[in-house]
């Protein structure tokens, strides 16, 4: 099938108007030896055949039949029904980038509100309209810092940053010969603050810290921020945005740039994307910011309206001198997260974050009581923690999966020093019954030992 309107009668009328004998003639500029013949047999599907095909393929994914405790940068949260309703509206879903602002006031205002909500959440002054995801947001923040102070060419990055994010940062910095120093972590997963402070010097362009870390740890960042500030380095905090419902905002812990992935606020897991990177910063850094920014203005009659602004930073104006090459971003995903933030509101986000924390704390505490279970440590945490059952990863996984539970992430795959450790994420979607089942299955595993 296809979605083409014109049929034979219209095609002939159009060819006549053009003065061409056939559609083939219109392709005359393509060298004959490169051109393929049109296929004769229609090998497409009907809409209903297409749906059957997709249902069959979707059924091969068995993941949703497990109770999952996987997190590690992608979290299962309840999605308020209103999000899907709003994001599927034609006017948002099927619009292009708002190049004609007078016909795009809805999306522009929504994006302006998204920026405002990100500022409220992080405590920062300005936000952009979105970046691809958490990893690229970190990378863009590093490039932004390097542009801000061109004479500096070193960044200091926590080893407990999501390993995928670190890989992407390394990738983006590889073309610029930047020196990357990594802050080690202690046995309990928390950052070695003394080492962090020792690494930051007057050559340091930026410091990048996770909040919480890959191990779920809430580090005490303030002190490191103070050192960064003293050295004139920019502090970049990469956070799960939900953490700000409970723990100190990026501004309160001394961030100059706040980045992360907005996924926990309103986006389904959908195998990793679309997610949505966010970036907010201090006012004086705004002209170094990558990506689109929406600003308020007035129309010819003095009526308020919204436009893409500070475009002198962007590729379509500045070309090779642009702050980034980003053009298409994650606008609709940003809209989804705006709706989610409004649905929860200031009180709801606090409750949601606390609920995540408390359920995590409950599971962590109860598992910690089982003989033989080793928690990674006692550092403060949010909605994720690491522990070891004293088994190799594979054995523990098999035991849980056999009982319908995907118990977490095998940390040893990323950090050999934590071989046998699982990273366990708990959100509001887990009921007490589910958590108790996890504890029960874990205790059966420990008894077997």
């Amino acid at each position, binding site marked *: 099938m296809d979605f083409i309107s014109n049929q034979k009668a219209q095609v002939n009328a159009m060819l006549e108007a053009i003065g061409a004998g056939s559609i083939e003639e219109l392709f005359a500029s393509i060298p004959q030896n490169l051109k393929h013949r049109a296929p004769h047999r229609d*090998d497409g599907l009907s809409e209903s055949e297409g*749906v059957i095909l997709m249902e069959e393929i979707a059924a091969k994914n068995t*993941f949703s039949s497990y109770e999952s405790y996987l997190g590690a940068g992608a979290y299962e949260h309840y999605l308020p029904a209103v999000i899907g*309703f709003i994001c599927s509206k034609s006017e948002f879903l099927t619009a292009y980038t708002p190049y004609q602002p007078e016909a795009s006031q809805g999306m522009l205002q929504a994006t302006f509100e998204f920026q405002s909500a990100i500022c409220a959440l992080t405590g920062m002054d300005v936000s952009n309209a979105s970046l691809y995801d958490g990893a690229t947001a970190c990378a863009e923040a590093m490039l932004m810092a390097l542009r801000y102070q061109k004479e500096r060419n070193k960044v200091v990055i926590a080893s407990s940053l999501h390993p995928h994010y670190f890989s*992407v940062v390394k990738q983006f910095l590889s073309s*610029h010969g930047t020196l990357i120093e990594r802050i080690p972590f202690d046995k309990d997963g928390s950052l070695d603050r003394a080492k962090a402070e020792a690494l930051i010097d007057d050559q340091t362009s930026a410091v990048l810290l996770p909040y919480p870390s890959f191990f779920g740890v809430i580090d005490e960042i303030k002190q490191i921020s103070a050192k960064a500030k003293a050295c004139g380095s920019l502090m970049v905090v990469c956070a799960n945005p939900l953490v700000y419902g409970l723990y100190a905002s990026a501004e309160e812990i001394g961030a100059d740039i706040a980045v992360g992935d907005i996924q926990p606020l309103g986006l389904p897991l959908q195998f990793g994307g679309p997610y949505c990177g966010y970036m907010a910063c201090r006012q004086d850094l705004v002209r170094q910011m990558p990506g689109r920014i929406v600003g308020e203005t007035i129309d010819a009659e003095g009526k308020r309206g919204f*436009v893409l602004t500070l475009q002198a930073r962007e590729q379509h104006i500045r070309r090779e001198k642009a702050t980034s090459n980003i053009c298409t*971003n994650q606008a609709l995903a940003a809209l989804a997260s705006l709706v989610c933030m409004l649905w929860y*509101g200031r009180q709801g986000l606090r409750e949601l974050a606390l609920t995540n924390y408390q359920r995590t704390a409950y599971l962590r505490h109860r598992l910690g009581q089982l003989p033989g279970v080793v928690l990674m440590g006692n550092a403060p945490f949010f909605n994720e923690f690491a522990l070891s059952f004293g088994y190799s990863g594979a054995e523990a996984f098999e035991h849980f999966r056999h009982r319908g539970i995907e118990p977490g992430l095998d940390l040893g795959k990323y950090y050999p020093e934590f071989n046998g450790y699982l990273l366990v994420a708990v959100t509001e979607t887990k009921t*007490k019954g589910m958590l108790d089942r996890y504890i029960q299955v874990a205790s059966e595993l420990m008894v077997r030992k």
Partner: protein
Amino acid sequence: MSKTCFEKTQPGQHAYSMSRSDSEFDCFLPPLRLLRKNELMLPEMSEIDITRHFCELAAKNVGIDNEFYPLGSCTMKFNPRVNEQCSALPGFSSGHPLAPEEMVQGNLQIIFELVEMLCALCGMEAGSLLPCAGAHGEYTGIKMISAYHSSRGDHQRSEILIPDDAHGTNPATASMAGYRAISIHTNVKGEVDLDHLRQMASERTAALMLTNPNTLGLFNSQIRDIAEIIHGQGGMLYYDGANLNAILNVVKPGEMGFDVMHLNLHKTFSTPHGGGGPGSGPVLCNEKLAKFLPIPRVEKDGNHFKMSWKDVSSIGQICSFHGNFAIYLRAYLYAKLHGNYGLRRIAENAVLNANYLKSKLIQFFTIPYSQSCMHEFVIQADNYLDKGIKALDIAKRLLDYGMHAPTIYFPLIVKECMLVEPTEVESKATLDQFVEAMAAIIEEIQQDPELVRTAPHKTPVSRLDEVLAAKKPILKAQLK
């Protein structure tokens, strides 16, 4: 004027509901010293007010579902709802990106087969769906070229050649990947100036980035010569796939001589653009560059699909997980529905529609390149400057006629440029309406140019002051 949601806040109101807590949960509290002290300054709204707010905003926005949207270089075609329906199937929407591969065989099948389909379509050998948008794909492709040269000990290549009509993302990508962007002239026929290209190509050339058909909507028939010049200097050829719609199953970038390319699935493969994204920008390449593709990659082993995260030659990871899965999932279904037969029909009808529209608009405007166009064409709207009317004014007036404007002032090399791309889906009747609207506007320019110069008049706001926005930036709302 719509109030912002921040101005609609009503103390104490809310939409959320939270599952009941448990006394066994309540005793856990995080350390006080680490908690947030400043109030979270989000609006307080009920669900009905949130819903109405966004319905009010939607009414001030237009998409391809609402009106004709001939935005050149953006391929605004119909977004089939069946794609939306299938991408929301729980089997797809609930998958965790780090789930064990045996639990996500369906997802891996989609990735593996879509790469295969796209490769066959483009005459390439291997590919990756990881890039989240076209520019991200460009970056990935250029990094692969960089890795290729390095692997051969060829470290002197510091320049990337880019025609002066190229998308802004091309030179921006070159800089981001650490290269110097060198601009190549376009000749009077609208093609790459081969003499200039020969002059600029050297042992410093890492690559040429080229869109073909180009941004003037013209197919560069000397493409094999261009490839020879670049390859002769040891450089690589990068294909910007933004304009692939015109050549689906007609001619393949790999056979034109390109080594690596990206596609914009949110253009050619109809995934909805969502008011600015998310998109998807897969990168495809030939044998020479395959080992440099980013990770993770999906491989097929008998009937089993597996994911590989380690490859020492790879440029590494370029995004958090697997790219915009739910977007390229839609493209998979779109490709399956069409088959090779339907994809060819897309190209043919896109080119037919563009040539038809061009043949009708030639009565009103200068058409700088008169030969047959591909899927889009440029108008030089400088015929009414004596009346004080620019391309911008005509574009704004079109909005009053219930049609989205074409792309304006791009490519930069055409004066008062309008780039028009009708796409294959539009009917002759819709194209005729567009011509009628243009005729009416031209008439208005003769009778009452002020009406056009001050357009739009029927949109939710009149012409907006972009200079003021940049001069005195207001970038966030204040809570009432």
